[in-house]
């Protein structure tokens, strides 16, 4: 049952973080937009790590599986940062 308890806690936490994101958006004043942006994306990243780490069992797999996924993320970041930077 330990697993199921842990999964439940994570599920509740994920829901709570999502609610937080929603609240941050609705209460944050306009001037703090960029602060909000960073905070909201950071919260999303936290959620993604939680899902990948526990639900997808990345924590229990060899670390190389994480690197494999990170290789894809590296490509995305290179493309997005490069293309985005080239026009701003």
């Amino acid at each position, binding site marked *: 049952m330990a*697993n*199921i308890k842990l*999964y*439940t806690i994570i*599920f509740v936490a*994920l*829901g709570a973080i*999502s*609610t937080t*994101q*929603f609240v941050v*958006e*609705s209460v944050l004043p306009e001037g703090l*937009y960029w602060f*909000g*942006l960073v905070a*909201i*994306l950071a*919260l*999303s990243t936290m*959620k*993604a790590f939680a*899902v*990948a780490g*526990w*639900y*997808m069992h990345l924590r229990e*797999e*060899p*670390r*190389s*599986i994480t690197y*494999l*996924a990170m*290789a*894809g*993320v*590296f*490509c*995305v970041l*290179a*493309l*997005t940062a*490069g*293309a*985005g*930077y*080239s*026009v*701003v």
Partner: protein
Amino acid sequence: MSEHLPPKSSVKRWLVTTNHKDIGILYIITSLFFLIFGGILAFMIRVQMWNSGTVILSELGYNQVVTAHGLLMVFWFLSPFAFGLANYLVPLQIGADDLAFPRINAMSYWLYLFSGVILGISFFQGSTLPTGWTLYAPLNLPAFIPSVAELGAFSGILALAVFVASVTLGSVNFLTTMYRMRADGLRMRDVPLFSISILLTVWMMLFAFTALLAAILLLSFDHIFAGSAGSGFFGSSEGGSLLWTHLFWFFGHPEVYIVFFPALGAMAEIVQTFSGRRLVGRKWFIIAMALVAIQSFIVWMHHMFLTSINLPIKTVMMVTTIGISLPFDLMIFALIYTMIKGRVRWKTPFLFVLGAILLFILGGITGVFLGAIVLDYSFRGTYWVVAHFHYVMASGAVALIGGIYYWYPKITGKMYNEFLGKVHFAAAFVGFNLLYFPMFVVWETPRRWFHYEAGFTIWHQAASVGAFVFGASFLIMFYNLVASLYSDRVVDESPWAYTGSAEWSVSSPPPEGNFPGKPSFATGKLNFLDGAATDGGEADAKTDGGVATAADAIEQEADHTSWWPVILCTTGLITAVGISGLEESYFIWPFVFAIPFYIAFVGLRGASKDGFGVVHGLYLLLAGPLLAAFLLLFNLHHGIEAGFGQANTYFWVTLVGIISGVGALVGMGFESFFAPEPELAEQWPFEGVDNTKLGMWVFLSSDIVLFGAFIGSYIFMRLRAGWQDWWHIAHENGLAEHAVLPGLINTYILLASSFTVVLALAYAKRGDKLKTLAFLSATFVGGCLFLVNKGIEWVEYYFHFGWVFDSGPASVTYYLTTGLHAVHVVIGMLILLFLIARASRGAYWSEGETAHTVEYFGLYWHFVDIVWLFLFPLFYIL
């Protein structure tokens, strides 16, 4: 279960085979066919260039020939030619029986062949793509493609999409195989160089081709839904053109190395053998290749030096570009120094590789010219570029031809004719230089022009003569390779002295199971262990003499045949041809109608395979009303009679293709196909992850890039439009309001469905069938709720606000990205239906296989969930 392969003389063998050696041969022969196809087109170019303005082709015709020549040579000849060799050799070199997923390997081949067939068909649909192989936007859009060419142009794009599907399956397969199935004792760094080069190539393929897939999906959207100038995704004047070049070259630069790396691997092997010396600086050679593979993803903007990108990013790209040229210097020097103190024999394979090295040196030096941005400015769009990349790319082809001569005795068991081989080399080398060197001299000729200065004529004519010599030299090769099959020059394991890798230690051609026993390098050199227990009672899965591995395991022999790959891919071919002419208002319907058929097929096939169960009955009962409901919707949209009456032939072709396609998919899903995983193998760094799980993760990693490219495109367009003005612009374009709440609700729903999948897995592991089924079903319901909620949102935006697909960059990115995600959800739900049906009858329950299948599915579903976790802030909150 296992069926033996029919003899090689039977046509059936080549249709049903899943054996890597057979598929390798199919790849090689097919790619040579496309070499002839692309070569004839090249020859038409050279005839057109005989005099300035010689006209054998119309303007449109010339553009088509230029485009198709480039596409065919790069996609349908060079890479598949190399992958024919790779298919044949990699398992032999690493000591595996076959690839990890033999049926998927067969699918890779059939998708490759049929994608080429689609490109061929496009010529007969009025005209194929007339846009150049780089397909720059917005010339690649319907608004700027002559109406006579639109059908064929879209077919060309679909051909690329099918090709990418083939490549992605192949990448997953090769990576899994090479990481998990190496012979005992064969560390990754000890893998022969050709296989190492293939490993790095598939890594690049996995990510680069996915970026191309993203670009193609977006472009297909434009072809279906956006007809007028300035509309659609890449037609948008808000950076649409520039975005295409980013996506294309993000793929396109790694593609250069994807094409060249296998040639480099072949060069290394051949230089080693024919110099009788191990490659000098082998470790550094490998490190250099790995560096290039990584760096290839951060140099793409050097193809865009004259676009509106800013100077700092140009500088960064110049530095990374120069950085990437240096490892190549090291590799070439390593090859040259290997000859020193060698036992060099000027046999045909060596001559071709030596020739390739010389050509590559020239191509490399002229490439440094292009690395200097100031020079690049002037070289851009001229024959300098044409000459440079032909020296590089075609030198790769020359090296691979050397590879064909080198491995021909291995593959056929016969020796080729050495004299004719040398004649071929001489003619090819002279022809090559006569063809491409004059292009440097008259580099001022604008690329893709067939008008040029009068003074250039003699040089262009020399090039045309060279093209004839180069092309004709291949006739000698074809004759040699065919005639030698019937010669009596039989070879045993190896005709060459100083060979090292494992393929030369088995007979030529190798036996069906590749090795006389279980290959092992545990003692420091290759040994074949016999089938008896080798490690604490664990038996070799290949041979029959072993001890059972698990308590109740049934001894099984590996399967080598399946009809499903070729059938499934044929339905894919039919569907793709249908889509090319599908009208906008009909677009979604064939796919919608296929869903009830899929459900019915799962019910029927499941009942006959696993025994009838309640779930199957439910599916069969559900399918009819669902189809009726969809027909009702179709009636609302088109009117049944009018709708079906006015549907064009392409609609019916698509419908037939997709319905038989889901049938084939179900058929393949229920086929039991046994591909053993070696029990004793070198599996660094993926020990303890079984093949299917690793394959799933590799696939997900590429899917990250697919979504990433969509999200990256969104961020690019939003940055360009002004990040914070985004919603303001959307409101101006008709979005009355954008609500965050539906996004939040869908986040809850999707998170909950992830939770239920993970619970299903937990209970499956405990053997609690009922709870497993319950939670799988709950996940399915979650998917439904998500789609309903999403549907309400789309209907609100699209119909009530009139914020259609094409209402500016915000709408097009929103609909396409969330749409791609929704398609992933739907696919997940269809897989769930399959799983629920199987799990309900307890298929494989005793072996715990259901738990595994649930786990793999869970990985996919969680990934789709994670994507949403980013779509939610990006498309709703921020």
